[in-house]
């Protein structure tokens, strides 16, 4: 891997900036699916309008500029540049080399096609080889077994179960914390030897 390697380009998808004009309407539509919202956040599921989504984007970019401990990328199809999802790295503590990861593919019909896996692979390389982080964390609800399997397939380990921290649909679920250490990622993704 050299400096010429593209950090943001995959085979199917690319990591890209927010398109304030085009993305708001697409992402607002996703918020009508409570499954999607529940997979990402613990607050009550509420759809938002494109106008509200635009305000969210402004808040995100403001935070990126001011806090210097978070990163945000949209996931876009290489084929036609359409918005597929997002990936967010936040709560970075530079002195300890840690950060929290959150990602989502918005349209249920676009899941299971490898977009999420490719986006995560790019993000992990960015986090470990560019930001030089020591570990990444992720948090998921126990009502999202597909999400848990996804992260475990990529090497994350379950570390904490906060018991009954979620109440949804009349049932209790745990909140699961997962973690992946840079050294674990490296042992599975060894660098090619330079010629």
């Amino acid at each position, binding site marked *: 891997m050299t400096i010429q390697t593209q950090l943001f380009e995959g085979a199917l998808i690319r990591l890209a900036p927010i398109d304030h004009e085009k993305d708001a309407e697409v992402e*607002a539509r996703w*918020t*009508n*699916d*409570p*499954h999607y919202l*529940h997979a990402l956040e613990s*607050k*009550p*599921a*509420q*759809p*938002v*309008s*494109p*106008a*509200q989504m635009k*305000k969210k984007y402004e808040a995100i970019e403001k935070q990126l500029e001011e806090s210097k401990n978070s990163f945000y990328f949209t996931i876009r199809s290489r084929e036609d540049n359409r918005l597929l999802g997002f990936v967010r790295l936040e709560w970075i503590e530079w002195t300890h080399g840690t950060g929290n990861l959150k990602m989502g593919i918005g349209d249920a019909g676009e899941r299971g096609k490898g977009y999420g896996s490719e986006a995560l692979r790019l993000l992990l390389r960015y986090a470990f080889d560019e930001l030089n982080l020591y570990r990444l964390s992720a948090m998921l609800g126990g009502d999202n077994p597909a999400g848990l399997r996804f992260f475990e397939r990529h090497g994350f380990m379950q570390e904490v179960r906060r018991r009954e921290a979620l*109440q*949804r*649909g*009349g049932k209790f679920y745990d909140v699961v914390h997962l973690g992946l250490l840079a050294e674990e990622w490296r042992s599975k993704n060894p660098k090619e030897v330079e010629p």
Partner: protein
Amino acid sequence: MADLLSGKLVRLTAEEPKTLAEAYSRWSHDSEYWRLETSDCARQFSVWGIQKELEKELEKESENNFFFHIRTLADDRLIGNVGLDGVRWQHGESFVGIGLGEREFWGRGYGTDAMRVILRYAFQELNLRRVSLDVFEYNPRAVRSYEKAGFRHEGYARGYLLREGRRWDLIFMGILRQDWLALPTEDR
């Protein structure tokens, strides 16, 4: 839980200020709708005026209010709004309010369906213990709709409103979590 926000006739949505402004302005010209909906004196609003108000609202973010608009499932028409106003989290209680601005949808089960969706949201998404409402004595259609949705009468404030030269009571109703759980599944 794909149908958290959908009922049999309607679904709950978020709307653009422009869309709402046009609807609200038109609804505000219907004084019967207005006076069933609110105790505030009947007023009328321009589209521009309402849009400015709504855009200002966008700036505010409230974690204690859950406000939605109502669209028909059949042809996606915007017919009204419904929301939980002022959740008192530690007591697990909130007031609910609903209004159908499109009068052709009155008395046809749309309001009851929207109320069922918001109650399910209150009890299953917000995990509340109780939902309260108040309704004007001169709105028997609404009172019947609320009874169908599971609300019980709890009392009334005498002579709360003065309209058309006489006094009217404000009726209080409420539904507890156990009342809601006891409803037949198709009514939840």
